[in-house]
């Protein structure tokens, strides 16, 4: 028996439980990422609001190109959540597996069990790539939600810092109370764009958040025109609002 197994292994030297040969194969990458996620240690208290971390449901919800400085890579994002963790406040844990291409094989070279806990009703946010610079790809998690008639979208940027995927910025990019059923003059809506400063050439460029629309100073007051420009600068660990 052992002879036969050795012979089998010799046929596929570059293939392992965490890698596959040939062209990029998203279906295979999803399978590997799910397998990898089964080894993640997640805790009841820290990750799931005290709900026991048993029978966890794991779903690949986004597969993103994550090239860095010419190196081909893919990031597979997974949502992990206990069964019935579906309250409005409840967010799944998002973990990730990064595949890199080496010696003709795609290898799950890095994985992280807990990147963010963002979501609602047990569902994760939308995710897309928003590169900060050619050498610094980032994931933009966009969470649109509503509560008591307040609708808002939050943008959370995650990128590699000191070898880990880390949240570096989280800002609101839209807010409206149109669904609150208030009088027209108390109803407001604003939106914001987040862009890298064109004058900034750094790996972590300044990020400019420009908002425009209407807003109320306090609940119940009349909505007024609103514009703002905020600049965020990378501090070594995350982006901070410049005074």
């Amino acid at each position, binding site marked *: 028996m052992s002879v036969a197994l050795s012979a089998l292994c010799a046929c596929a030297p570059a293939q392992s439980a965490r890698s596959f040969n040939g062209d990029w194969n998203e279906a295979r990458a999803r399978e590997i990422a799910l397998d990898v996620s089964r080894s993640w240690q997640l805790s009841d208290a820290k990750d799931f*609001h005290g709900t026991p971390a048993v029978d966890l449901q794991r779903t690949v919800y986004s597969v993103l190109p994550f090239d860095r400085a010419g190196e081909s890579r893919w990031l597979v994002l997974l949502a992990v959540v206990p069964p019935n963790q579906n309250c409005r406040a409840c967010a799944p844990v998002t973990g990730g597996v990064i595949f890199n291409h080496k010696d003709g094989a795609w290898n799950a070279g890095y994985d992280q069990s807990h990147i963010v806990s963002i979501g609602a009703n047990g569902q994760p946010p939308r995710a897309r790539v928003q590169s900060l610079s050619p050498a610094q790809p980032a994931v933009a998690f966009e969470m649109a939600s509503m509560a008591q008639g307040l609708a808002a979208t939050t943008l959370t940027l995650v990128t590699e810092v000191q070898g880990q995927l880390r949240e570096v910025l989280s800002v609101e990019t839209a807010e409206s109370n149109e669904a609150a059923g208030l009088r027209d003059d108390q109803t407001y809506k604003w939106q914001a764009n987040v862009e890298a400063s064109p004058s900034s050439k750094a790996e972590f460029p300044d990020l400019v958040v420009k908002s425009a629309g209407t807003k109320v100073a306090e609940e119940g007051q009349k909505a007024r025109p609103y514009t703002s420009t905020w600049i965020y600068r990378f501090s070594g660990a995350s982006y901070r609002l410049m005074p």
Partner: protein
Amino acid sequence: MAEFEIVSPADNTIFNIDPGAAATGPQMPVIQAEARFNGLIPDPTTTATFSWLVTIKFQCSDCTNGRNKELNDEFRLTSVGGKFTINFPRIRGGALTISVAVDTATKCYGLETKGLKIQGVNPSRGEVNVACGTEIVQKMVMQESGRRQFDAASNAGVSDCPLFSGDRLGGVGLFQITNPAPTPEDHWDWTANLNHGLQILAQKRAVARAYPARVRNSGAFQALVQRFNVGRNPPAVIVLPDFTAQQLELDTTRGYNGFAGADAFGNVLHEFRVPVDAAGNLQVNVGPDNRGVIAWQQVPAADRPQNTGDPNYVNNVLSQRP
């Protein structure tokens, strides 16, 4: 032995907010503080005036999905003698520091505790359900937070943090109070959170109750009726009734998540709508008395905006088991 020391509470002691009952609300711990002098003659411990400063600091962003907001509290008291019973005036959690200072004739003494904290404890299922009152409110609390005020298991789970919404809108506690922005009490006092939610629900109920009349009085609805009556002689009497008690309850529930979207009459989209066919014509049965009473139609989740809020919020609430 130190010349002046805080005997109690010991550094790094953790206190809990007792969740109490629906009728009483939560109770802050009662802390017996004691400071004393050692080796001074005469010993001023029982006669000196002790000035106490009690501080609680809490930064929401230290918790999962909490926003950058500080909820701090402090109060001062004096005692003659080194023993002092701390009765907190407000329900608050966070890092607790007790400072004490004494001026003697020869020297000013001051000390503060280290590492104390006050945590929240989730109320029991029974007490939450009593406080909710109606079944629909019990279900809403399940839908919003899984019946958790704090970021721990329901029914007596303990945490340093209130339960903040995973969407990062700043919603907090049992009823996930978001809009208007939650008060400090909404963070730490589960009965205050619940009562605030009930107040918001009352506002939504008023909006829901007024909706049928808003539609009836709109020019667009009247035009719809006119179009329906083209060719009818005499024209049918079309009645758009107020919501039934059950419809009002469901529309109020809808409002708690949000009236996202627009109806056909220039209003926000409610849980129910006036039924029209694919061509936009009014759907109503006219009886032999030439009278037609419109039956409000529940808007299917698929017909609601899919990119904001929970299109299936009302059904999700109804499916909860409190």
